[in-house]
């Protein structure tokens, strides 16, 4: 829809109103004056009709009736203080009306009515102080005029003049009353607008408060859901570990001969039970870890620790497995390293997983753990001389429940969760875990980094 272009006059009027805002006093005076001054002049002309009157007086009367309302309006409108200018113009009006006594030939009643008319108008716009000033100005001019023209010559009032003067006074009052009415209506409208605006603001506030409350409720619901999730995980952890505790615990007690001597075949079987129990435990731990990660309940416990010490203790815990498989397990640390800011338990879990995998899949040769650091990050690598991973599996091994070629990995066991969890743990620390090199029948190197400065 195209907006209608305002007319040039309307634009000019608008611009003028912006540059010279019209004081309400000036507007009232103009309306009163445009009607009142010509009427007053007509009255004087009628009253003086037939009497000898100098031309300049007719000219002055004409100027007062026609030109003065406009001149007074623009004087007041363009003045620095429009109100003051309007008052001064009103005083000029009072002086002119004071002269009306003389102009009407000292007819007392019409002069009085006319002067009352202008003075009530002055009181209407300017209050008591302006009224008193108007009385003073008007009085001085009237008295001076009376003296100059000899009071005794006062003519008797004629009916037409009285009627006309009453009409002038009436018109003055009417215009003022109309103006007052208009202003009152404007005020009422403005007040209504303000009320509507405030109602709108109140409504908007209420809507805003409601929205905030809804957000808060949603937040509470989310917190409650999170609490429920972490409670569920804690309960699951407890419920799964309690029976497993009995299984592993009793197996160990029996093996240790707490219930009497154990025949060799039973002992070997118990070893299988214990191994299966421990496998089940690590599986439960992995599933719980993954659930915690998925539920956003996996929290890191960040503290400074030595990466080299951590690596040697992690390697020490796997030494018996390496010995069993006759695999050389070594650790190489590059010089003195500053402490790392990380979750020691979780980083140990990552390293144990990588070394454990390397030992699990390597049948002969060596597994080497190395710890290095550059300006921005620590790097831990685990190199093995195992079967290697074919390129098509390089991505897949990091996905949950995925292993490389299942025909070779199946006999080695595992759920395929460990590496996925390790990757997530490293990423939560702001580091990266990747398969750095792998060649079939030669071996693989896995590595992860940890940032030196935690962001």
């Amino acid at each position: 829809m195209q907006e209608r272009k305002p007319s040039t006059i309307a634009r000019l009027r608008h611009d003028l109103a912006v540059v010279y805002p019209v004081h309400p006093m000036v507007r009232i005076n103009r309306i009163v004056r445009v009607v009142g001054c010509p009427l007053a002049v007509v009255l004087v002309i009628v009253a003086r009709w037939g009497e000898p009157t100098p031309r300049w007086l007719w000219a002055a009367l004409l100027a007062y009736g026609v030109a003065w309302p406009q001149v007074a309006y623009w004087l007041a409108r363009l003045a620095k203080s429009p109100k003051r200018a309007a008052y001064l113009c009103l005083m000029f009006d009072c002086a002119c009306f004071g002269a009306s006594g003389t102009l009407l030939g000292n007819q007392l009643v019409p002069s009085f009515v006319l002067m009352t008319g202008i003075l009530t108008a002055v009181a209407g716009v300017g209050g008591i102080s302006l009224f008193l000033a108007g009385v003073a100005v008007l009085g001085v001019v009237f008295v001076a005029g009376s003296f100059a023209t000899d009071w005794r010559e006062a003519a008797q009032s004629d009916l037409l003049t009285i009627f006309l003067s009453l009409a002038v006074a009436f018109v003055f009052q009417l215009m003022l009353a109309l103006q007052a009415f208009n202003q009152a209506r404007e005020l009422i409208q403005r007040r209504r607008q303000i009320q509507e605006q405030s109602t709108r603001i109140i409504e908007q506030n209420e809507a805003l408060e409601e929205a905030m409350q809804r957000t808060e409720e949603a937040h509470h619901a989310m917190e409650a859901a999170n609490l429920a999730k972490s409670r569920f995980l804690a309960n699951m952890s407890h419920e799964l570990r309690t029976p497993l505790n009995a299984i592993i615990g009793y197996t160990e007690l029996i093996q240790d001969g707490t219930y009497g001597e154990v025949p060799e075949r039973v002992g070997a079987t118990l070893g299988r039970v214990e191994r299966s129990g421990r496998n089940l435990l690590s599986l439960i731990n992995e599933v719980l870890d993954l659930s915690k990660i998925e539920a956003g309940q996996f929290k890191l416990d960040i503290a400074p620790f030595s990466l080299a010490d951590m690596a040697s203790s992690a390697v020490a815990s796997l030494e018996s497995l390496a010995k069993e498989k006759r695999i050389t397990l070594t650790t190489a640390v590059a010089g003195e390293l500053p402490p790392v800011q990380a979750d020691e338990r979780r980083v140990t879990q990552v390293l144990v997983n990588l070394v454990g995998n390397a030992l699990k899949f390597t049948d002969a040769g060596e597994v080497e753990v190395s710890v290095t650091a550059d300006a921005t990050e620590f790097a831990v690598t685990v190199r093995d001389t195992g079967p290697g991973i074919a390129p098509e599996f390089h991505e897949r091994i990091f996905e949950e429940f995925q292993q490389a070629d299942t025909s070779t990995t199946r006999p080695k066991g595992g759920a395929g969760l460990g590496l996925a969890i390790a990757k997530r743990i490293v990423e939560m620390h702001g580091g990266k875990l990747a398969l750095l090199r792998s060649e079939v029948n030669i071996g693989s190197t896995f590595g992860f980094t940890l940032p030196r400065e935690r962001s």
Partner: protein
Amino acid sequence: MTKRILIVDDNEDNRQILIDLLTGAGFEVIEARTGFDAVETAGRERPHLVLMDIQLPGMDGLEATRRIKAQPELAAIPVIAVTSYALAGDDRKAAAAGCDDYVTKPYSPRALLAKVRSILAGED
């Protein structure tokens, strides 16, 4: 003198493991199934050590430990927390409640026995 150990666990099998393990190692064992029971028994029997399961019905093991440690005549009894949560910060919560040590389920009875022995040896 035979040392008395209070074991607190609501699961019978798990209590039995500890009874078998500890009586086999020559300790006297007393049992409690709930947190309230644990506080009351500790006050009555004055054990030399408490093995406190953390997840118990009603009052949990942390609260029971706090109540035991709040009594001046019981405060010196070492309490080992046994927890199956194994969540980050559990060990700190146990330490804050006044537990002297912390093991996670499932524990190795061998390792637990070694820990109990070393704590009781340190007591003498």
